[in-house]
């Protein structure tokens, strides 16, 4: 599968990280946690949409894998209580979109992949994956 070139930063991600500054008490990690591993999620029933998070550089890729008349979309939430932000792949079957995020090191991201209509922003009911947590 050919990946499309990197897109610009996702604007909403910058807004999301602002909220992190509101935490008054600093948390401390005494030892390094597990190395962040890449992860992926498929839409149910045939993987018409796929999302994949690459911890190095914090990329959330969205793939439209079937010519089913729907776009693939990744919904993601970030540490700090914000979401869902959306990354649409509305370029048709066989394409992908790179969501190049800017997340603080060690913070979590929770994402799902769904099918939808990018024009209206509508998510097709019952097409979302359960979701997975990964780390920047």
């Amino acid at each position, binding site marked *: 599968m050919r990946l499309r070139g990197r897109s610009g930063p996702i604007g909403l991600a910058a807004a999301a990280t602002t909220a992190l500054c509101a935490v008054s008490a600093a948390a401390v990690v005494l030892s390094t946690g*597990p190395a962040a591993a890449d992860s992926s999620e498929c839409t149910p029933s045939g993987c018409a949409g796929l999302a994949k998070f690459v911890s190095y550089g914090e990329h959330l890729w969205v793939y439209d894998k079937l010519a089913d008349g729907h776009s693939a979309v990744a919904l993601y939430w970030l540490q700090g209580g914000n979401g869902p932000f959306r990354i649409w792949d509305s370029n048709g079957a066989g394409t992908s979109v790179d969501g190049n995020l800017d997340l603080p090191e060690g913070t*979590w991201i929770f994402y799902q992949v769904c099918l939808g209509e990018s024009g209206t922003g509508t998510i097709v009911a019952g097409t979302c994956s359960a979701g997975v947590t990964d780390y920047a």
Partner: protein
Amino acid sequence: MRNLNRRTFILGGIAAGGLAATGTGLAMPRGARAATTPLPYPFTLGVASGDPSPDGFVLWTRLAPGPLAIDGLGGMPDRDVEVTWEVATDEAMTDVVASGTVVAVQTSSHSVHVEPAGLAPARDYYYRFTAEGSQSPVGRTRTAPAAGTLPSQLVFDVASCAHFEQGWYHAYRYMAADRPDLVLFLGDYIYEKTSSISSDVRGYVITSEVQTLAQYRQRYAQHRTDPALQAAHAAAPWIVVFDDHELKNNWAGADTTDPSPARRAAAFQAYYENMPLRASAVPAGSAMPLYRQLDWGTLARFHMLDTRQFRSPQAASGDCATIRSTSRTLTGALQEQWLLDAFTDHTARWDFLGQQVMFAQSDTDGSASTCDVNTDAWDGYTAQRQRITQGWVDRGVRNPVVLTGDVHRHWAANLKLDYWNTSAAPVGTELVATSISSVNQQADPSAAFLAANPHLRYVGNKRGYVRATLTPAQLTAEFVTVSSAFQSDPAKVTSSVARRFAVLDGQPGLKDA
């Protein structure tokens, strides 16, 4: 450093099998030794404390390295995890005066409740947790004054109704900045509802109505990811009670089939797991022992009520016969008697009823014959309201004040034995805290409505909370509002005191201040 371990009670969770004392040899945590996968940072839901007594409080955290996991288990592996807790006299945690270890277990969604005891009264303490190399934020808490002493002042915030999707939690941020002695949270901490309105500023992961234990757990976790909420919990001990949305909209306990016992048990377990509640509140299936009293020396007694589990089903608006029935109850007979007995004692200068729904009459057309009222509130249970009001009058309660949430508006009210007698003197006072973030889409009260209810002295429809400053001589209530709950940027949001009232010792009712 005093070693208080032997006096410290712990409860790892509901399935931990009751109370155990530290230092007596904990069993090896299940799976802990065999585990090889390091735990990602687990304190994503923050820390909390609650229910202060003169010698302690309850400390809370919940391990959740993946807080939004759809199974409600916070991304935790299926193994036990040892959690160390420390209490210190300083924020830098250099003077640790109590510490211990508990085991967080999956059957309690790795929540931790610790009840240190033997601490000094009327002072600040700081606390933190450590688990598998990660350290939590430091929280501030406070012990209550010693029994029989009269402190010179108590500052507490009153809050309710914090829909996660409907607004940003700026009000929580300002509560944290207050660093009050106490926070009273009067219900609707989460919302069980389906994702809904177009003005939502953020979204739930589970967009349908939550009904199972996994779903309730997940929803609490999503609320608790908010940094302003975490800061408010870390700033002061909370005293919490639930209202309806922690389970289901407008539920009434006497309807034993809806919500089902299984759903009640799930909601109560998740509530306990996510609140700084003592072991005395651990639910037993579909019942949860929640109503209780807490003393702040002889200055204040807080009667924290449960107006959901024991209430008769709501009457239809306009059904005067049902609304006025003397057999209907909002609290149940046992809780009512418990409250009246406490009125008999009235050992404190000020008696606060911390509860959920509006106490003062709020009659739409001002006519006694139509009963066009909100029947989910005390207006739907008028005979019991009359018994309780008469109860505190007959027993000589010196300063009765009702604290309320639920309605997403600030209200200040003079309480009366007969609301239709506009010249009658007040016999109590009610302060209703608006919502933290939940919207109010109803039209503002009309001039005719306010004229028909002259005991309602103030109404405000902005998000915020009530800040109360209590001395032996006076209660000062500040109705705090934030400029916007839709603006995400904290730098663009301000808070202000929309209205200030005083209640003077021995003089029920509101005075401008």
